[in-house]
C-alpha cells in the first residue's frame, strides 16, 4: 500500500513537470489541484457527481479483473444502461413515483447486463480476447444508442442531440445541500455496491472461485470449477454495475438521454480499477481520487489558456503507468533483499 502512494507521488511529480513543459505554470496547477473541490458547496457537489459514475465503472472493471479478464467495454455498457433507464420512462410515463424509479433501474440493469455478457460469452465459448470484442462493442453501443436517441426520441424543443425529458416521477431527489449540483441517491447506491461486492468477495465461495479462476485459469478447469460460468457472470454483473452510471445521469441529473453525456467514464473506470488492483473497497477510494483529478482538469480548463480537460486522460495514463511500473520496482527490491540475505 505504501508503494502505491509512492508511485502516485512519482506520477504527480511527472504531471507537474508535464504541465511545465506544456508552457503552463506548475504553481497554478498545484493551486487548482489543492483547492478546486473545496471552493463551494456546488464544487464539492460536482466532485461527488463525478465520483458516482466512477464508482460504478471502476467496480465494473474490477470484478472481471479479479477473474483475470479485462473489461474495456464499460463505456458501451454504460451507454446501453442509460438508454435502458430512459426507455422505461418513455414506455410507461404514467408510472407513479417509487414504481417508476424501480422500473427504470430494472430496465437499465437489463440493458447494461445484456450488453456486458457479450464479451464474456465470446471469450468463454469462442476464445475471442475480451479486449478486442469489448472495444468493438463500445463503438457499436454508442452508434446504437445515438440512433435510438436521435431517430426516435429526439427532443423537438431542443437544439441539442438529446431525448425529450422524462416525467418528474422518474427522477431521484437531489440533495439540496450541494446548491444545485446533481448529487443523488446514486452515490449511496454506488458506495453500497462497493461494500456489498467486497463482502461477497471475501466471505463467499463465489469470491474464492473468482480469484482462483483469475490466478490459475487452467488449474481451475481441472478442478471442475465452472470457469465459463464465472467468466460470463462476472461480465454480466459488470454490465449491471455500468448501468449505475445511467442511474446517476438519467435518473439523477438530466432526466433524459443526452448524446455524449459520458466524458469517458468507462475509460476512466479502467484507470480506477487498475489503481485499486482489483480490491473493491480500494476501487471506491480510487474512484474518489480520479474524480478529484477530473474535477481539477475541468477547473483548469477555465483557469488556464493552455490546458484543456483532455489533460485528465494524460493524468490517468501517468497514474496507471506509475502504478504498473511499481510492480517492477517491487520485484527489484525483492531481488536486492534476497541478495543481501544470501551474502550475510
Amino acid at each position: 500500500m505504501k508503494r502505491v502512494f509512492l508511485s502516485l507521488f512519482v506520477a504527480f511529480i511527472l504531471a507537474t513537470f508535464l504541465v511545465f513543459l506544456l508552457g503552463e505554470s506548475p504553481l497554478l496547477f498545484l493551486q487548482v489541484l489543492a483547492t478546486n473541490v473545496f471552493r463551494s458547496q456546488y464544487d464539492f457537489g460536482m466532485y461527488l457527481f463525478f465520483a458516482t459514475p466512477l464508482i460504478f465503472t471502476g467496480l465494473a472493471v474490477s470484478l472481471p479483473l479479479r477473474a483475470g479478464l479485462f473489461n474495456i467495454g464499460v463505456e458501451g455498457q454504460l451507454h446501453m444502461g442509460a438508454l435502458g433507464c430512459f426507455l422505461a420512462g418513455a414506455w410507461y410515463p404514467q408510472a407513479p413515483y417509487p414504481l417508476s424509479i424501480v422500473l427504470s433501474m430494472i430496465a437499465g440493469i437489463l440493458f447494461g447486463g445484456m450488453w456486458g455478457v457479450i464479451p464474456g460469452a465470446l471469450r468463454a465459448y469462442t476464445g475471442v480476447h475480451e479486449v478486442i470484442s469489448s472495444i468493438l462493442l463500445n463503438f457499436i453501443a454508442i452508434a446504437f444508442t445515438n440512433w435510438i436517441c436521435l431517430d426516435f426520441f429526439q427532443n423537438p424543443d431542443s437544439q441539442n442531440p438529446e431525448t425529450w425529458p422524462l416525467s418528474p416521477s422518474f427522477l431521484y431527489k437531489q440533495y439540496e445541500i450541494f446548491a444545485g449540483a446533481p448529487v443523488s441517491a446514486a452515490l449511496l447506491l454506488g458506495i453500497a455496491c462497493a461494500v456489498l461486492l467486497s463482502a461477497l468477495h471475501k466471505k463467499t465461495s463465489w469470491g474464492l472461485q473468482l480469484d482462483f479462476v483469475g490466478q490459475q485459469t487452467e488449474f481451475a478447469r481441472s478442478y471442475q470449477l465452472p470457469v465459463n460460468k464465472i467468466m460470463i457472470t462476472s461480465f454480466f454483473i459488470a454490465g449491471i454495475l455500468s448501468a449505475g452510471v445511467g442511474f446517476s445521469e438519467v435518473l439523477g441529473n438530466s432526466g433524459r438521454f443526452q448524446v455524449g453525456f459520458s466524458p469517458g467514464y468507462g475509460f476512466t473506470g479502467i484507470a480506477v480499477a487498475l489503481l485499486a488492483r482489483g480490491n473493491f473497497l480500494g476501487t471506491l477510494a480510487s474512484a474518489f481520487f480520479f474524480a478529484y483529478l477530473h474535477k481539477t482538469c475541468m477547473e483548469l480548463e477555465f483557469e488556464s489558456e493552455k490546458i484543456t480537460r483532455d489533460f485528465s486522460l494524460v493524468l490517468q495514463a501517468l497514474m496507471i503507468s506509475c502504478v504498473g511500473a511499481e510492480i517492477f520496482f517491487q520485484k527489484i527490491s525483492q531481488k536486492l533483499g534476497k541478495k543481501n540475505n544470501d551474502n550475510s
Partner: protein
Amino acid sequence: MTILDFLFFSLKAMLPLLCAAFAGLWSERSGVINIALEGMMLLGAFAAGCGAAWFESPTYGLLLTLAVGIVCGLTYGLMTVGLKMNQIIAGTALNLFAMGITPLLCNIMFGRTGGTPSLPIEHRLEWSGYGIVTLITTLTFYLYHFTPFGLSIQFAGEKPEALGSAGRSITRNRLLAVTLSGVFAAFGGALLSLFLSSSFVRNISAGRGFIALAALIAGKWKPLPTLFSCFFFGCLEIVPLLLQDGKWMGITIPSHVIQSFPYVVTLIIMAGLFGKMRAPAALGKS
C-alpha cells in the same frame, strides 16, 4: 459507384490499416501484445499534421512522424520489455496518453482542440502515400521471411529460450521489434491525416488500431494473409459509401447503423474464426 471505384477506394482505405497491422505483426510476433496501436496511430497522425502545417511540406510531416514513432515504440518497449509491466495495462496507458495529449498539444499549438489546420494538396501526400506503404510492406516481407532478424523475432515470440541458447538477446530483439512497430503504426496514422484527409482531426483513428489488430489475428499473424485481411477490412469501411441516400434495395438504413457496420462485421468474423487461430506461443509472457 462502379466495381473499379469500389476496389480503388477500398485500396486507399486499406493502407493505414495495413501499416498498423504490420506494426502489430512485428510486436506480437516478438511476444509483446500491442493494443496501443490506436494510440500510436493517433500520435503519428498528429505529428504528421503538425509537421506538414508548420513547415508547409509533407516531408517534414513524415520526418516528425518517424521521430514520434521511434519515441512511441521505444517507450512502449521500455514499459513492456524493460519494466515488464502488464502489457494490456501498458497499452491502455499509452492509448489514454495519446487520446489526451493530442487535443492538448493541438490547443497549445494551433489554438483549438478540433484539429490541425487544413492543408492544401501541395502539402499532403499523393503518390508518395502509396510509396510509403509499398516500402513498409516490402520491408516487412523481406525482413520477416529472408533475414536472420526476422527469424530471431519469430523465435522471440514462439520459443524465447532458443534465442537465449543461441546467444542472442531476447530483450534486445523484442525492443527492436516493438520500436519498429511504433514506427509503422505512426506512419499508418500519418497516412490517415495526410493521405486520406487534409489534416489531423480529434480521434481521427476511430478505432482503426483495433480493427488492425483484428485483421492481424484474422491473418494468423503472418504477412501475406494479413495483407488480404486488411484489404477485406478496407472493403468493409467502404461498403457504407455504397448506400446512396442510405437506401439499400429500397429500405432506408439509418446512418448510425451504417457507421457501425465495419465494427459489427469485424466482431462477427472474430467470433466465427477464432477457434482456429493460433497466437505466437510466448505472446504476452514476459
